[in-house]
């Protein structure tokens, strides 16, 4: 039984300062690549899957910013290449982001949701609000798409400088992605379900509040309509109190 704040960072780096870079070691341009199991950069062994006793709330993500690649090659070593990347969230087979003509799009750019994020930076333009719920038995994925064509650049460089070959050292970071999410598991995931049924937002505050309600009603039957109604009423009362005490009102 726990609520944990999880994160995952994906980094795509060069592989060697001495061995020629293989274009197939980097994601093709305009092709979505899973940051978990896409076969590039650091990966995990199985795709993210929410088990029956878990509940996931994705809250924040970001990726390397910039548009132009501005490649820098020194002594056949590539030391800079900006990816011009986009992030899409996929749940089962559905893409979260769609363009205004209602078709699948690559998602949010690194300029709109940048990563890494420094202490002097202002908040990003894109904020994932409301967050994304991933329910039990669903798979989810973060897909990254580079629009600057690194494999082609490697091929072109090798052709132009034959027999010399381009190398990309491990110190060259091509792209980074980061995602933060809350993982509710055990009884807390059941609480998430109860909140979902009542139309109450799922966040740490509400799950802990519901747990307190459960403890108060210890020994009583908590699967009846009366209980649900009481919870629903209690939530409404609490919101009203917040509105009075903190001046919190319904947002425009």
């Amino acid at each position: 039984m726990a609520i944990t704040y999880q994160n995952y960072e994906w980094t795509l780096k060069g592989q060697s300062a001495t061995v020629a870079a293989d274009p197939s070691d980097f994601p093709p341009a305009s092709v979505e690549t899973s940051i978990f199991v896409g076969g590039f950069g650091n990966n995990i062994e199985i795709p993210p899957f929410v088990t029956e006793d878990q509940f996931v709330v994705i809250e924040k993500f970001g990726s390397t910013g910039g548009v132009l690649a501005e490649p820098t090659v020194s002594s056949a070593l590539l030391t800079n290449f900006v990816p011009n990347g986009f992030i899409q969230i996929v749940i089962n087979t559905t893409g979260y982001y769609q363009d205004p003509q209602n078709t699948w799009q690559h998602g949010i750019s690194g300029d709109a949701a940048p990563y890494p994020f420094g202490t002097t930076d202002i908040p990003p333009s894109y904020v994932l609000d409301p967050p994304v719920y991933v329910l039990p038995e669903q798979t989810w994925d973060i897909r990254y798409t580079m629009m600057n064509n690194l494999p082609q650049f490697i091929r072109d460089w090798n052709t132009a400088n034959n027999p010399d070959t381009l190398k990309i050292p491990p110190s060259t970071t091509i792209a980074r992605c980061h995602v933060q999410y809350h993982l509710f598991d055990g009884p807390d995931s059941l609480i998430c379900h109860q909140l979902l049924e009542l139309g109450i937002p799922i966040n740490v505050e509400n799950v802990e509040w519901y747990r307190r309600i459960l403890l108060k009603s210890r020994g009583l039957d908590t699967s009846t309509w009366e209980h649900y109604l009481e919870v629903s009423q209690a939530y409404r009362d609490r919101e009203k109190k917040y509105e009075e005490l903190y001046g919190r009102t319904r947002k425009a």
Partner: protein
Amino acid sequence: MSIRRQAYEWRNIVPGSTAIVSNSGHPVLNYSVTTGNVDGRAIEIPALVPYDIMVGGVGNNLEEPAMLRANQLIVVDHMGSYPDSAGLNIRIGTTRYFQNPDGVPDIGMPSSAMPFQPITIPTGESQLGFFEEITPPVYILPGQTWGIEFTSFETLNAGSPTPTSDTDIARAYVRYLLIDGPDQLIATRLLEQNIPISAENIQWYKQNLIRNRLRADLGIEDALEERLAGKERRLI
């Protein structure tokens, strides 16, 4: 059935030396191995000519204009543009949202007020403004066509040169809530009752619906028990 936070981004860069538009969205960009320059151009934007960032024929575009289906509703609450001489206006049908005090539509929200800067600009007051939101937000209703128009006070990228840094590329960004399915019906009800449409208020309305349903179910159960109380029990 959902409320999703969407965004659309436009840039005036296209690949090659002849094209001025990429109808399949953001284009793939290739680079010269000798100069490091992009094989592409930042397309010239004439002064005071509005360009629709979705189907305006410059930069990354869509294949068809943005139009809402019968089960969709959009709440536009944030946008931004670059460079400083540019501005964005929202078009719904044939009506422009931002207008001068004389009622004539103008270039809209200037970049200086709501910027969307290249990430390569590190610090400075030019970055302020990300916190700004359109209040109240703009609702786009089912069946309406809409667009965002980018206009610059001065000519940008004269001669459509090859950009050498991100600051050479004009851009626009719009962030909105896409509400569809049953949530769109709730949003329409909120609109009828003059309650602002937001993710919080849709959630609040849903809670009320659920609570009322529970009350009704409890009432029916009580009435049934009361009615059956006087009846003799029969075994089937």
